[in-house]
């Protein structure tokens, strides 16, 4: 019942906040978001399962109830957490609370709708990470799009409408293609599958000889077909180059708190799903086409980093570097070794915290200066020492400096992929990504943060953060930075 309580408390909070007056909505939402945060914390502390549940690992807080009976098929309300989803749930609850707090200043219209939608988004995300029946999972997967669309389209930047509809339609097409792919896999197993329960499907698909050919195709072709469709669908969400074009638009136009959730949690939906579906259910296809997938991963790493290098807008830099970071996750997954998959999972978490932190810091700078362009400012360290300090810490995390969580994630991924059957060349090339990351981050920091103070826009900057919100900002940011280092030590 823990998971139901978790999702329900978020939904109820969302309803309450939607009806609350604008003035109190922000504080109320933050207070109410503590409930799921506490719940997920307790779940984590009492959690004694480990491993991938679909591969026979343990499952905690599991519930199953028959939901829909259709012809000879059944859909179950089946939820549970395992070693992969538990950290992501905690990531979601922490980042949501942080995003809500960070929205207190920048969001100054229609607050109750804003916070209500953020909480609704959280409910969807928690559902994605806990659902174990395909259809239930798919419902949550699609639910996430709705609040995200409104959050970008109503509170976003100047080109928000274009960015929102692009995000909406692009990711929806991807979901539908993935849907067809998964169903092909399920129906190819003939009458042996009567429920699209992920655990059952995963076990059956992995049993040799269960998948039958349909429509004149051999079983292996069917598997490859299903794999390709699902991979395409998830690749958009991750995003993997060349399916990434929605991401910069959405990130740049989205308000900062939404960018935090978008980079911090939404991108993880893609890699989580890839791990749950493609890599768990069809390891044979992964083995056969490992080199090809590794190419996608490496191209994402390098190309994403190069794109980031070419940007002037701080928010765009962080957005493109997310593509690069998610490339490491894919590389770790395709390596399919203990270190690789573990590193990929850890990299998901680490990137969630670091990119969230980066977006928050950029948001603070933007609020003070009303510009995000690298060329428009310099010497910010002079006026905003705290913010800049955090910026530097987050950037070091991104670069993968030792003792930071980014380091742990990347090292594990590299260890894993060097160890695996795919050519070490891929790993070697991907490692160059780090150099580029360091390049653009150091360059951006040097130009904006250090040197003599100068600002092109006409805003006064107080030398010291004095307002309440700003202190909040710092606390939150430091905290999330601290959490990321803490988790790094636990691995």
């Amino acid at each position, binding site marked *: 019942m823990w998971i139901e309580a978790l999702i329900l408390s978020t939904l109820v909070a969302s309803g309450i906040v939607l009806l609350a007056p604008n003035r109190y909505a922000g504080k109320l939402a933050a207070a109410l978001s503590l409930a799921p945060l506490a719940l997920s914390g307790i779940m984590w502390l009492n959690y004694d399962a480990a491993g991938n549940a679909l591969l026979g690992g343990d499952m905690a807080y599991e519930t199953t109830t*028959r*939901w*829909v*009976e*259709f*012809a*000879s*098929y059944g*859909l179950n309300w089946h939820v549970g957490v395992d070693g992969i989803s538990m950290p992501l749930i905690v990531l979601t609850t922490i980042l949501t609370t942080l995003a809500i707090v960070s929205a207190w200043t920048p969001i100054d219209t229609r607050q109750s709708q804003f916070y209500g939608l953020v909480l609704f988004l959280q409910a969807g995300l928690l559902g994605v990470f806990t659902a174990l029946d395909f*259809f239930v999972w*798919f*419902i*949550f997967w*699609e*639910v996430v*799009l*709705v609040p995200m*669309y*409104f959050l970008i*389209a*109503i509170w976003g930047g100047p080109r928000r*409408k274009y960015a*929102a*509809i692009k995000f*909406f*339609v692009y990711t*929806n*097409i991807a979901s*539908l*293609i993935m*849907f*067809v792919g998964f*169903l*092909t896999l399920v*129906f190819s197993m003939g009458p042996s599958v009567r429920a699209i329960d992920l655990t059952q499907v995963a076990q059956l698909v992995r049993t040799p000889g269960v998948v039958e050919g*349909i*429509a004149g195709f051999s079983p292996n072709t069917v598997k490859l*077909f299903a794999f390709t469709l699902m991979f395409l669908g998830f690749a958009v969400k991750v995003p993997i180059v060349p399916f990434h074009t929605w991401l910069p638009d959405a990130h740049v136009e989205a308000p900062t708190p939404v960018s935090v959730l978008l980079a911090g949690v939404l991108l993880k939906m893609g890699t989580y799903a890839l791990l749950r579906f493609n890599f768990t259910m069809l390891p044979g296809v992964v083995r056969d086409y490992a080199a090809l997938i590794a190419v996608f991963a490496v191209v994402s790493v390098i190309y994403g980093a190069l794109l980031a290098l070419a940007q002037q807008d701080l928010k765009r830099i962080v957005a493109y570097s997310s593509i690069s970071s998610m490339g490491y996750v894919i590389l770790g997954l395709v390596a399919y070794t203990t270190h690789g998959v573990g590193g990929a999972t850890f990299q998901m978490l680490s990137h969630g915290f670091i990119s969230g932190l980066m977006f928050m810091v950029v948001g603070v700078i933007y609020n003070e200066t009303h510009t995000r362009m690298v060329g428009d400012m310099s010497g910010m360290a002079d006026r905003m020492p705290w913010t800049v300090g955090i910026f530097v810490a987050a950037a070091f995390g991104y670069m993968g400096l030792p003792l930071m969580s980014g380091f742990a994630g990347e090292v594990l991924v590299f260890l894993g992929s060097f160890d695996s059957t795919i050519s070490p060349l891929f790993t070697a090339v991907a490692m160059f990504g780090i150099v580029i990351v360091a390049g653009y981050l150091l360059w951006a920091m040097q130009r904006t943060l250090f040197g003599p103070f100068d600002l092109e826009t006409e805003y006064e900057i107080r030398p010291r953060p004095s307002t309440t919100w700003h202190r909040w900002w710092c606390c939150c940011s430091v905290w999330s930075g601290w959490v990321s280092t803490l988790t790094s030590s636990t691995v």
Partner: protein
Amino acid sequence: MTGATLLELPEYAAVAPAVIMIVTALLLLVIDSISPEPGENDRLALNAVAIVGAVTALSVSAWFLVAGTGQTEGPISLFEGALVVDGMALFFSIIVSSVTVLVLLAGYDYAAGDRYQAEYQTLVFLAASGMILLGMANSFVAAFLSLELASLPSYALVAYLKHNRGSVEAGLKYFLVGALSSAVMLYGISLVYGVTGTFQFAAVAEAIADTGLVGILGVGIVMIVGGVAFKTASVPFHFWAPEAYEGAPAPVSAFISSASKAAGFVLAFRLFVTAFPIGVVEGVVDWTLLFLVLSIVTMTLGNFAAATQENVKRMLAYSSVGHAGYVLIALASVTTGSDGYALGAGMAHLLVYGFMNTGAFLFIALTEYWDVGRTFEDFNGLGWEAPVACVAMTVFMFSLAGLPLGGGFVSKYILFGAAVRSGLWWLAVIAAINSALSLYYYSRVVKAMWIDDPEGSFEIESYPVGIYAAIVIAAVVTVLLLPGFGLVSEHASAAASALV
């Protein structure tokens, strides 16, 4: 309801839903002839009778369906097999009477101050009884008569605003295309009769098995498909739909696009499964292939045309054509020896569609009542003026687009699943791409209501109770059908399995 109490009812009581509709229609005419110039009290009385009549028909259908009438002890065959009452007939009776209830509720305000209100309601009831009978029809004669009973009042309803040129033109167009397709269908029926010598669906199937006149039979079947295409607003007889839906009063558009479409489909389901089972007519004409082509063309044409519209009502009209294309997947996915999965999916989708599409058209009725305007831009900023109605409209739009804010999500994906299951994965891909495209134009309405800023400002003077009630009910049911989809799917798949 126990079986014992059921036994007390005579068999012919099974047609009660249709009878209630007809009796209410006559009752309304009587009230109207007693006081032909309705005052406020008469208006209340008329509406009360109408709504009570429709709700009774709905409750009786639901009661029969839950109690197992015509299901536990096999279908109830009446009038020497001309009509049959089974799970499918009752299921569609529920769809038709639910839509009727919603449309009548909205009509309370929409037709207020109109002196022909009783006629309007009578026509709705007559058409509804025709649609319910269409679901029970088990012979070509009964089917054709019910079809005409459903169609003729619909023509008059579309042209109801007789001083409005658009309405009259739409009525005429609807009538002409309807007359043409009826003639085509009748000719097809006569050819089938000529080959088989019987009108009864099951007997036709038996006679086909040992006939040599394959060519004539094939032509007949194709012509009957034409009649079905008209009623369901599918290609190639869809031309009337955008005109009629746009020109007709919005509640009538809701009625025709939801209930009438469902009635067309129930005829198709029963007809093609019992009279022309795919295993029997395989050598004659492969109607699954025919429906496959129609499905692809219909959904693609409907969705692409909808995407280019500037007028919201017309966009909904084309989207309705697109949804006919989705439901045709159910017929295209029928295979030899298949279970009730495909047809059940189609039925479930039609039920959910009945609520979400009716709700969407009734929202248009609301904007017509307020005189907001017809284009997307006219809806700008409406969300902050009338939040309740616009939240409901958002639910309808996203549910129609297949996002999980309502039951449309589950029913649509189970329908796509039917295609994949029959090996037509590429049909599912085409449908999925269509569905994603539809998100673009549905979200335009949502974007206009909540995101775009209005150019001028307008005052909403009054909030009509009836239309609001209908919209809110439709929205609540649409949302509840997501968690409660199990209730629908159970009956739908049971009814479909009993038929195939």
